[in-house]
């Protein structure tokens, strides 16, 4: 039996920005597809309607901690009810780039009460497998500065830790990492050292997935 009771499998890759989630998701998708299973991928903040609102509000710096939490929760609810659950019901293997653990980390760092945030997501199905890419903050910093650059909200500038971008990013990401660490045992994360080579990480993940597939849980 799957953990959520639906026919499909729910597999999550969690981690902060720059931890290599998308790369691993892509590799895992190919790995599973090669075995003739139906795979669906869904990323954080991609609902048709609400994702644009979030981006627009962020651009105009209109969000406070509460509206930030609620908008992401609305985006999640939309994707969950319109994409994820229907796919699980029809037996797909659903791969998720981030799950509500992201919201728990970010919202709590923004000062929200953890019980309030948990309530927002309490209807979400329990994943069959959660991979967490664990990355030290100094490596993260380099990766992000070297790729997308520092973003206002991802640097937690809205929280007011520091007006210095670098400093703010460092504090914010450290606090997010603390939250993720607190969640590891509660949500049964398979924590993987994110500094390992891409291939090594993929092998760890695909072994775990293969074990579930071999158990005959899907047919």
């Amino acid at each position: 039996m799957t953990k959520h009771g639906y026919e499909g499998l729910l597999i999550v890759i969690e981690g902060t920005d720059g931890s290599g989630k998308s790369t691993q998701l892509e590799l895992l998708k190919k790995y599973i597809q090669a075995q003739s299973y139906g795979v669906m991928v869904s990323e954080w903040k991609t609902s048709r309607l609400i994702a644009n609102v979030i981006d627009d509000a962020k651009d105009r710096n209109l969000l406070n901690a509460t509206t930030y939490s609620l908008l992401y929760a609305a985006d999640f609810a939309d994707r969950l009810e319109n994409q994820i659950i229907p796919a699980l019901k029809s037996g797909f293997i659903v791969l998720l780039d981030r799950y509500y653990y992201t919201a728990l980390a970010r919202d709590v760092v923004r000062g929200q009460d953890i019980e309030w945030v948990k309530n927002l997501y309490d209807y979400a199905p329990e994943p069959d497998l959660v991979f967490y890419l664990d990355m030290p903050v100094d490596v993260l910093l380099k990766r992000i500065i070297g790729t997308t650059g520092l973003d206002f909200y991802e640097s937690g500038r809205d929280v007011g830790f520091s007006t210095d971008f670098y400093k703010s990013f460092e504090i914010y990401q450290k606090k997010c990492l603390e939250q993720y660490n607190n969640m590891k045992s509660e949500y049964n994360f398979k924590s993987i050292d994110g500094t390992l080579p891409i291939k090594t990480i993929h092998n760890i993940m695909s072994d775990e997935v293969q074990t579930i597939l071999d158990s005959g849980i899907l047919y």
Partner: protein
Amino acid sequence: MSKLTEKHNYKGTLVCVEGIDGSGKSTQLALLRDWLKATGQDVIFTEWNSSELISQTTKLAKKKNMLSPRTFSLLHAVDFADRLKQVIDPALKAGFIVLADRYAYTAFARDVARGVDAQWVRNVYNFAIKPDLAIYFDIEAKDAMERICSNRAPKFYEAGMDLKLSNDPYESYMIFQGRVIKEYQKMVDEFGLVKLDAMDSIHSKQVAIRTMLKEVLNSKGVNLND
């Protein structure tokens, strides 16, 4: 812990009106607003689903009927949170009388009538400030329908057509608004809403409201001369 059950410590006063469409709450609030302004009070008005941040999106989504009850509930909570932090909270701190056309109770009535868990939605809104005066205009579904649908059919959401209760908008309206009313009636005790009979005259309701508001303001040391 919910702020909705704790008395606030702001200088200002928060008044909200609740009830289904056609219960006459907006008329009463407009009369109240004009009177308060005439007596020289600082008054600010805010209404349900009107924040710049999200209201247009919610309206668009409604038109297309593309979102689930839970998603709608969260979008309305975004709207509410935005107005609470941007409008209501600062105005109360500055000592204004804040008049709200609908408040969190609207979500508790409508969302629950749409099948959202009652405790869940109460938890979502637990950051809402408890009003000094919350008035509920009680009306029967058939009376409200007569008032708002005298020259048109009930609208899609107002009739709860998204719930597929009936293909006939009038019948669907009666079932759906009946559920909303039931939720409101439960809240009279739960949150201390003051129930007024919507079928009473405009004048007698306004007299009752002014009397109650004067008492609230007196207790805060504000005396109105009219």
